[in-house]
């Protein structure tokens, strides 16, 4: 009897220990990391009466949910046009940087010219130049090019941080595709362009998807360039517009602000939920490679 009870007690002990060591801290992390989103959602659907009266209503819950804030956002502000601009800029710059970085990564990893590693290193270093030190000279350039206040300026400028990232991701991905496949194609008489379009690119599709969704997310989230280069209300991107157009006067419309933040986060969150594995693998892949 005592022989069986001892391991059982140990098992109990280790289970209790596991709760304390693993589940309690993990629960705290999850709570703190997710609470702002819960709070954002709750605020977005709360009528103003509940929003500013904690004594009468439990602030953690909504007793009479309302769509007033979202309706106000969609029909009384230019929110749909901000969403549209953001979407166009994100798609345009993602497409441009994917094109540029696929070609560059292929040249660096597969064409193997002299000095290709230095080009790779230079592109890596470009990733370490933060937008904060580039936005002032870029603003003067954008004005000189006549692109001030135009979303095209953003489409052209965003690749400065997207191309280095995507190139590095894709170099790592191309490296994982066996070179023998290309040699076989070369022996069969395929040209280099045929090899790229018919052998390497189809095999690199998961890498391209990773790079694409990452670029999309990064350009959706970009702030400082959009703040510095765009002035007119209808050309603003969602993050900039919420901060500069919805914050008016001293009384903040928290319901509308939170509804705007929620709607602005939703596209990337939905996108993310479809491609979670690609995000995780590209995040870790870019670090490992």
């Amino acid at each position, binding site marked *: 009897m005592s022989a069986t009870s001892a391991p059982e007690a140990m098992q109990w002990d280790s289970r209790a220990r596991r709760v304390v060591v693993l589940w309690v*801290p*993990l629960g705290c*992390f999850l709570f703190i*990391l*997710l609470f*702002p*989103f819960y*709070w954002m959602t709750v605020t977005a659907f709360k009528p103003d009466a509940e929003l*500013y009266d*904690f004594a009468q209503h439990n602030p953690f819950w909504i007793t009479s949910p309302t769509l007033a804030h979202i309706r106000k956002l969609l029909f009384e502000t230019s929110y749909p046009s901000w969403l549209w601009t953001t979407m166009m800029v994100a798609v345009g710059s993602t497409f441009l940087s994917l*094109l540029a970085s696929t*070609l*560059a990564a292929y*040249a*660096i990893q597969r*064409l193997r*010219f002299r000095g*290709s*590693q230095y080009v790779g290193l230079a592109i890596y*270093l*470009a990733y370490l*130049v*933060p*937008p904060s*030190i*580039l*936005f*002032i*000279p870029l*603003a*003067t*350039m954008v004005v000189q090019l006549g692109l001030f206040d135009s979303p095209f300026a953003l489409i*052209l400028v965003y*690749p*400065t941080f997207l*191309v280095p990232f995507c*190139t590095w991701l894709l170099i790592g991905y191309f490296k994982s595709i066996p070179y023998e496949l290309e040699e076989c194609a070369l022996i069969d008489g395929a*040209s280099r*362009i045929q090899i790229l379009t018919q052998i390497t690119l189809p095999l690199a599709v998961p890498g391209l998807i990773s790079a694409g969704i990452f670029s999309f997310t990064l350009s*959706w989230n970009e*702030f*400082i360039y959009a*703040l*510095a280069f765009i002035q007119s209300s209808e050309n603003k991107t*969602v993050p900039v517009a919420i*901060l500069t157009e919805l914050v008016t006067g001293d009384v*903040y419309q*928290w319901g509308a*602000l*939170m509804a705007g*933040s929620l709607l*602005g*986060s939703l596209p*990337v969150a939905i996108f993310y939920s479809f491609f*979670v594995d690609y995000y*995780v693998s590209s*995040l*870790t892949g870019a670090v*490992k*490679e």
Partner: protein
Amino acid sequence: MDATVSTHWSRNRPQPTALARFFDNKAVLVIICLLPAVGLLTVFLTYPLGLGIWLAFTDQTIGRRGVYVGLENFEFLFTDPIFWNAVFYSVFYTGVATIGKFALGLWLALLLNEHMPFKSFIRAIILLPWIVPTVLSAIAFWWMYDPQFSIISYIFVDVLGWRSENINFLGSEWPARWSLIFANIWRGIPFVAISLLAGLQTISPSLYEAALLDGATPWQRFRHITFPLILPILAIVMTFSIIFTFTDFQLVYAITRGGPVNSTHLLATLAFQRGIPGGQLGEGAAIAVTMVPFLVFATLFSYFALARRKWQQGEGND
């Protein structure tokens, strides 16, 4: 069946056209492939970097071409207490937030490395703070830091009863500084945790088994196996984190815009405030340029940390 195959074999291979042969030339192909990426980066990254350094030595304002004024901008800045305050807060913000992010991120990575139900789901939702646009989550924090209707104050005052009055998060210097650091740590934890988790998963379990047989304590296993083996990834992630925390803009701009009384200005927000709304492009560029030595230092650190492991193309060479 055999006959058709043999006719195929006997046919001559079609000769490529001159254009196709031109595109099959390796030198031509390398140039064509590199042109878009290198062109974009040269025009919109290398040139502005040089232009920014030039602007720092001019008195350019919006709408007026500047002339060379030597070190005047820097001389002015070095006597400006607001600038020194921004330098101090940038360093303080980077230091504290990096320590917080990495301590908590490593802890979270170790937790996520355990076997548990819903593992991939938990990992997926943990990345949310990093996926959502920073400005938008910063606005959520701003609302949570509201002086009157802060939910955090509500918990401390009405639910727990630990305090008698609301916490004034953003109203005075130090609370505002700490509030921003907290928001930055909150946003940084997922990235650190998921990157480090990738490093943890490459560690072979047999090392832990061997250590267990030798009677190593959990702390010894962490100290002598886990930590040394994730150090290379830790170094890279930390370099990135330090660079992007030091040059952070969005969070501070969204929550405090440098206030109260300029106490939470980072170098980037001060450069923006002087350069774009203030119109003093030269002075703004000078503030941005003062970040460069720091970035060079962080990059060199990263380079030497990376050079030790065979990094990217470094298969044959090291």
